């Protein structure tokens, strides 16, 4: 039984890491109704910039601030160059624009830095927490716990930001109806600028944690695909949904790997989340916490 819990908790904790990536998607989806395909590339750019700065011998926090600055500028530029000319265009147009953006970001990131894998050390060790393994015999990684803690703080503050603040309300208003938001005097440009900047910040946090865990390399961009089942499960426009979705996906894929895997020859961790997402689409297409499409008849 202790083994079961160990797998479960390990899964939940790795799920939190997915949630972090999914959060970035949720933010932009909420404010502009666009699935931002470039989120994975943003994670990659953030991690690469941060690790690059660190390798130049720059202090941790200074590097963090500089990278954050880069991400914010990227967000503002995206709004100015890509989104502003596309106001009131169909969502598919905006989606295509983000695909284009993905390639630009990936290209620029590798041009400025390089395409070698880097190691990123955040000073958090990936070792079992001694007091848990002593008391229960389970191995729970310090790194995972820390990552989960950071994610929890991030999510709580974002959820509060969306529901309680003036800007947060404006963000949700913009997501619901661009034109009406304009009509009440909400400047779309500012809002999109803010939301892309916040998404950049989330990408930075995700990039640092994933980078520290798997190394900073091009495969970070594929995180975007990992976040997809999380989003489908949790709902595209829900911050708590991204978390719950992440937890479910994380736990499910680890448990499936351990308990169902041996029956089919293993290796199901990679695709099991997508099957889960597919089943979910049949039952509840808006996700667990997603906003129901309101139709009046």
């Amino acid at each position: 039984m202790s083994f079961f819990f160990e797998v479960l908790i390990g899964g939940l904790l790795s799920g939190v890491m997915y949630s972090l990536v999914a959060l970035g998607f949720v933010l932009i989806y909420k404010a502009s109704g666009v699935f931002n395909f470039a989120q994975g590339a943003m994670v990659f750019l953030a991690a690469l910039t941060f690790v690059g700065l660190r390798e130049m011998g720059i202090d941790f926090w200074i590097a963090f601030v500089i990278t954050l600055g880069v991400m914010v500028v990227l967000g503002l530029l995206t709004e100015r160059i890509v989104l502003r000319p596309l106001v009131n265009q169909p969502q598919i147009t905006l989606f295509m624009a983000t695909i284009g953006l993905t390639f630009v970001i990936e290209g620029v990131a590798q041009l400025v830095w390089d395409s070698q894998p880097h190691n990123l050390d955040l000073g958090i060790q990936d070792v079992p927490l001694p007091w848990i393994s002593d008391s229960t015999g389970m191995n729970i990684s310090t790194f995972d716990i820390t990552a989960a803690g950071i994610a929890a703080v991030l999510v709580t503050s974002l959820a509060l930001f969306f529901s309680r603040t003036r800007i947060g309300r404006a963000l949700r208003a913009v997501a619901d109806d661009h034109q009406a938001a304009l009509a009440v005097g909400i400047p779309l440009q500012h809002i999109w600028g803010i939301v892309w900047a916040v998404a950049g910040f989330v990408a930075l946090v995700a990039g640092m944690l994933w980078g520290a865990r798997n190394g900073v390399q091009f495969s970070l961009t594929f995180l975007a695909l990992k976040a997809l089942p999380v989003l489908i499960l949790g709902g595209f426009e829900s911050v708590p949904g991204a978390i719950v979705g992440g937890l479910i996906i994380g736990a499910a894929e680890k448990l499936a790997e351990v308990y169902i895997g041996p029956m089919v020859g293993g290796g199901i961790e990679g695709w099991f989340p997508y099957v889960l997402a597919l089943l979910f689409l049949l039952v509840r297409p808006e996700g667990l916490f997603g906003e129901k499409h309101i139709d009046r008849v």
Partner: protein
Amino acid sequence: MSAAATATASPPTTDAATATKVLSVNNIEVIYDHVILVLKGVSLEVAEGRIVALLGANGAGKSTTLKSISNLLSAERGEVTKGTIEFRGKRVDRLTTNELVRMGVCQVMEGRHCFQHLTVEENLLTGAYTRKISRGDLAEALERVYHYFPRLKQRRSSQSGYTSGGEQQMTAIGRALMAKPSMILLDEPSMGLAPQIVEEIFEIVRDLNTKERVSFLLAEQNTMVALRYANYGYILENGRVVMDGDAKGLASNEDVKEFYLGLSTAGRKSFRDVKHYRRRKRWLA
């Protein structure tokens, strides 16, 4: 059109005339997508504390006129290519909607456009986005809206997407009120609502007009109701003002009765075919 030429040449309105004038639209022309000419020289005025109705059939240019004032046109690839718009004596035709709302002009869009997934109260709160005010003042502003729309208070925590059409219209007007405007551009408030609700909404509009001194420019297809509540009216046809006058006069005008109130046995005609009718252009007056 020689009229347009004289209009641009004529001097700006004098001080005596602007004293009571809040909004003046001078001979504007609006083009969508660089090719579609929608407004072909529309001029109108709204005096302080008045309700002015903008009447006309579908596609006459009522909404476009309102949107060119609030500058929501740019999001639809429309552009004011000629003419000027002045609010309290200042040119506003190059301002963004956000700046206009700050100045006190707020549009309530056709079809209500509530934020469906936000609660009624959150909808109202978004209306105060442009005002950086304390929580206390915000609560006070909310109470003011609830005072005029008691029904909204009951439904404050429902998602507005699930409220009735009348309640959504009230939410939309209340949301505009939260910006503390001195002028509201109200587009088609009667659309899709039961006659009784329409009456209720117009009563509130009149209330706001008299008690809060909010001026209204009101686009309506429901000519009868609009003229009953308005002080003055303009009739648009094909992107031109073809007639204007005080509301009572318009309501009793034979042509208006015939074209818009359906009170004639003759077949439908256009103002264009009515020879005896002098097409009034304000800039010639």
